[in-house]
């Protein structure tokens, strides 16, 4: 009997402790005044953020608890439900130039414009500091009925850059290049040369000598490969016009045909089954030597390295411009991939702002990059190589700005309901599936583009 009671008491104590622990863990999300909570959708960032939090606590006495909710859709629904119950974390790592605006427009995250002055912004990579800024164009788009970010106000700054990068980077396996008789010491000078390289590696090994990308998410073919090619080929204005309402310049026009014919040159060289691979699967296939080339972004290098490939065996370069391209000196513009936002509900705004400031200081950003293998939004300047190693710093060196630089973070010229997945499916039907030729693909993209403009 005595034993039973003892067991009962132990159970009661355990239950009470569990309830207290649960209450602490899932409470307001902001703790007792010196404890901040931070949510991210990137599992690979957690360890690096926790290491930063330890340093931050030693310096300021403020504790930061980091939680990851992955994948992206899980993070989205977590924020949705937490916002409804006023239980959002104090700091959020969000998709920049998209999710930050949605959350800010809904009043879930707060305006940082008054806290981030020009001097603060100068620490970020050129062209990325204002990713979270609500410009006049963004504000006007937000007023449309089916806008993604209703409620934003002109001049608001809804996030600051945390990680940066760009799409349209090709990784090549140096060993396979050498085996095919190609000098892996320098990047191909043009799209045509890239295609000739592909022909050589594919001729050497049809099974493993091709190019891959995670086409299970069909949008990757569109915005990681076709769009930088189109931008280089047509130049910025004609590229923007492809997505406009003027049918003589938009998809369906001669310009659209020209772009698709170039892109279709990849079709014979996709690795078998690339259309069934997710993004991580494609990077893994490349790292395992099942593809000679992998299309991705600056962030792809960390996935390839994590899959065990030695970076010294990789040649990376931006998608090369075709000969006769309009955009001379074509470059890839960096944009903030993720941003840091502060909850509008937090009672610890000052502490949250200190955390943001700490995370984006060059020294800490370098430590984060080393640990997470991700390029920070903070400009590391001359110390880049020392802080993040030669590979990530070489990526930073490849960035450009201005009229000749393609900025994948800018989608303001597309219809507000443009869905990259739907358009990506159309492109996949041409390449690699060969169900459509470039003319039919151009026509289908035209129908879709027109439907987007008529349905807004």
């Amino acid at each position, binding site marked *: 009997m005595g034993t039973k009671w003892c067991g009962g008491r132990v159970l009661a104590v355990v239950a009470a402790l569990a309830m207290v622990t649960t209450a602490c863990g899932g409470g307001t999300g902001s703790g007792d005044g010196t404890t901040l909570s931070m949510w991210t959708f990137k599992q690979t960032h957690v360890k690096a953020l926790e290491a930063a939090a330890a340093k931050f606590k030693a310096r300021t006495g403020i504790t930061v608890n980091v939680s990851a909710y992955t994948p992206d*859709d899980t993070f*989205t*629904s977590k*924020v*949705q439900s937490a*916002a409804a119950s006023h239980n959002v974390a104090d700091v959020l790592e969000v998709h920049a130039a*998209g*999710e930050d605006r*949605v*959350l800010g*427009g*809904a*009043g*879930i995250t707060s305006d940082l414009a008054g806290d981030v002055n020009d001097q603060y912004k100068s620490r970020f990579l050129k062209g990325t500091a204002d990713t979270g800024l609500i410009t006049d164009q963004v504000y006007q788009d937000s007023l449309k*009925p*089916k*806008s*993604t*970010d*209703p*409620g934003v106000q002109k001049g608001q700054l809804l996030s600051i850059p945390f990680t940066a990068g760009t799409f349209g980077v090709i990784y090549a396996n140096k060993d396979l290049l050498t085996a095919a008789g190609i000098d892996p010491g320098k990047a191909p000078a043009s799209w045509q040369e890239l295609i000739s390289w592909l022909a050589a590696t594919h001729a050497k090994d049809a*099974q493993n000598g091709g190019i891959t990308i995670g*086409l*299970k*998410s*069909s949008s990757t073919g569109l915005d990681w490969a076709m769009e930088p090619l189109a931008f280089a080929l047509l130049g910025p204005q004609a590229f923007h016009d492809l997505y406009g309402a003027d049918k003589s310049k938009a998809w369906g026009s001669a310009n659209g045909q020209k772009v698709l014919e170039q892109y279709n040159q990849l079709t014979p060289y996709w690795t*078998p*089954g*690339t*259309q*069934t691979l*997710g993004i991580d699967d494609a990077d893994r296939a490349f790292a395992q030597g099942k593809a000679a080339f992998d299309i991705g972004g600056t962030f792809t290098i960390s996935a390839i390295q994590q899959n065990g490939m030695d970076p010294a065996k990789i040649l990376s370069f931006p998608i090369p411009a075709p000969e006769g391209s309009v955009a001379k000196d074509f470059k890839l513009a960096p944009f903030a991939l993720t941003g840091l936002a502060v909850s509008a509900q937090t009672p610890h705004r000052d502490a949250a702002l200190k955390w943001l400031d700490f995370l984006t200081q060059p020294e800490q950003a370098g430590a984060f990059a080393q640990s997470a293998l991700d390029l920070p939004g903070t400009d590391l300047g001359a110390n880049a190589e020392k802080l993040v190693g030669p590979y990530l710093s070489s990526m930073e060196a490849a960035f450009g700005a201005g009229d000749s630089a393609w900025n994948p973070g800018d989608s303001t010229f597309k219809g507000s*309901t443009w*869905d*990259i*997945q*739907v358009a990506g*499916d*159309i492109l*996949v*039907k041409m390449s*690699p*599936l060969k*169900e459509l030729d470039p003319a039919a693909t151009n026509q289908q993209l035209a129908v*879709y583009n*027109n*439907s*987007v403009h*008529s*349905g807004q």
Partner: protein
Amino acid sequence: MASRFRSREALTGYAFVLPAVALFAIMGLYTVGYGLALSFARWNGFTPTWTWVGLGNYLDLIYRDPAIAPVVQGAALRTLVVMIAVPVLTVLVSFPLAAALNHITRLRSTFRTVFFLPQVTAGIALFYAWTYALQPDGSLNYILRHLGLGSIAQPQGWLGNPGTALPTLIVVMVLGSVPVAMLLYLTGLQSIDQSVLDAAKVDGAGGLRAMTSIIWPLLLPITGAVVMLNLRFALQDFQTFLLMTNGGPGGHTLVLGLESYNLAFVSGFKPTLGLSSALGWILFVVALLLAALNLRLLRSRA
């Protein structure tokens, strides 16, 4: 006195039922009502207010929005194919399998366990295992090539060829449905009165005749249940498609369940939660009509 006792007894009964009713009211009715209301609104899941659009979401899905309606129509056609193929193939595989298992005496329980194993394995693990087996260098192509059937092997993988992707997914779904259907048929077969079968034998009915004229008609209610369960599964399933193909290649395996999921969670923050909810309600109504039809057919047979 007796009436006071009865009312106290009734109160006790209500008190016992109340927690379950309250739970259902909160978890069931509230969410159902919320979902229904959402289907008449435009919302991105974040803003504090909804924009009421009346029947707009339903009209957009069915025909009105030129960017969405064609995608939904294509998905509806593929869903219809799945809805016909999965129940029919499940019955065609599970009924003979159950009949065979019912006939054998040795190793019956071993075979029953083997055939039921897929049901107790987590779906997600099965889907990933299938995905690897179906790749260009996966085990299925490997086996076919080593059996001298290389011409059937799929160089782009079974899920990478638009012509084989949907049929392959249907086969995976059927193999997932067969265990339960087989068990239901086996239960039915074992409950048939042996004297009925003996009488048929005395009357000269052979094995096939007994199967088609006696056993099959007696098991029609079970067939109805199997068809109904698989119709619902085929109509609402999205995880098979999400995990194995994500609707690809090129949208060739996009079905309504997956489209509803995409509109809710993968729409790039577009205000399409209402559209997703409306699509969910359309699926619900179709499922309800099919259930009613099935019930009517079964009653008329009975």
